[in-house]
């Protein structure tokens, strides 16, 4: 009987710890290709154009973004590689938007790991980033995604039924914009339906 009480107490302590320290719970590793994204919540951007680009409002989960393919860049204002890559990621966005086969279907967001809203806004202004960036001031998303170093790119297929699947998960700056976009098209299988 006493042993049962102790077990209950131990269980209670563990549950309390999960409630008190949710930000400290991190995924076991980086998001795996073939798997699903952790349950990350974001707040819709204040900018109307960005809300419209993503097709979201209020608080939303990443797979609720209106896209067939979503590219997520985990970056930091403080990361030299992210700074160096910023113009290339902008170019990637422009190439997607300039391609009628991709526009509206493939979208990009950035998450500033450990960056406050001010820091994300500073990065956005400095590099004229045309796609939505989200702050992660307390490293909550960073922890959920498995403490990724930056820059880190995740490619997500989002299906019409709301389900999703990670098709790309990679650390590091990308070599070339065209090669990266080609990888995104090939690995995501976007537009394959139209080809058939």
């Amino acid at each position, binding site marked *: 009987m006493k042993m049962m009480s102790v077990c209950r*107490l131990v269980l209670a302590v563990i549950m309390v710890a999960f409630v008190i*320290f949710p930000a*400290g719970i991190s995924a076991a590793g980086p998001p795996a290709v073939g798997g699903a994204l952790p349950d990350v919540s974001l707040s819709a951007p204040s900018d109307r154009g960005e809300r419209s680009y993503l097709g979201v409002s209020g608080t939303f989960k990443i797979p609720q973004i209106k896209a067939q393919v979503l590219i997520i860049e985990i970056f930091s204002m*403080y*990361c*030299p590689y992210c*700074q160096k890559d910023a113009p290339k990621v902008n170019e990637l966005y422009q190439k997607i938007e300039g391609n009628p086969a991709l526009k509206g279907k493939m979208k990009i967001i950035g998450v500033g790991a*450990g960056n406050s809203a001010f*820091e994300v806004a500073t990065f956005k202004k400095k590099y004229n980033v045309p796609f939505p960036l989200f702050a992660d001031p307390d*490293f909550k998303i960073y922890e959920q995604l498995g403490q990724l170093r930056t820059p880190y790119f995740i490619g997500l297929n989002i299906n019409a039924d709301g389900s999703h699947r990670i098709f790309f998960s990679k650390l590091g700056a990308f070599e070339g914009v065209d090669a990266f976009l080609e990888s995104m098209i090939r690995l995501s299988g976007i537009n394959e339906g139209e080809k058939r």
Partner: protein
Amino acid sequence: MKKSIFISVFFLIAAVSFSFIPVVHGVSDAYKHNIYDPGRQKPTDSKLKVKVGMEAPDFTLKAVAGGTVSLKQYRGKKNVVLSFVPAAWTPVCSDQWPGYNIVKDIFEENDAVLLGISVDNIPTLHSWINQMGDLWFPVLSDFWPHGKAATLFGILRSDGTAERAIIVIDKKGIIRYIDVHNVNERPPLEGIIRELEKLR
């Protein structure tokens, strides 16, 4: 029996709580696997010798780029932001100054200079800041006599590193802001900018 259960539960709570404390974050891939993570440190570990409103103590330190820099050379000319960091090649420090590197224009708008200071020696700082790219602001070595400048401000920790501190000094040489930050965390950029804007 009861006592032993309480002791067991106490240690369990301590162990579970400790395992959920967020780790220190070093997130940029620019440093590859060259970052040494000392783990979580005591948030602050020194006794401040200065306060807001006081004249800042002058110091002269060697700059990584060559020559020396004295605080007094900016007197009557520029506001000064001192950014003391604990140690090169550690997680939080490595992801701090590169951020300041993209806000040179904000410092200039506020007629301010930034001085990055660490107790590391020049060769170590040279290698470390090379990984960050070209920094626009001087990086100064407070290596020898060890932590001389940090000691003047009362921010040398007991292990010989400096606190992660931001000190804003106006053109008259008066200290206007002190943030001896939790050494495990990066001070948000907005704190520095807000204080600089107050000096306008």
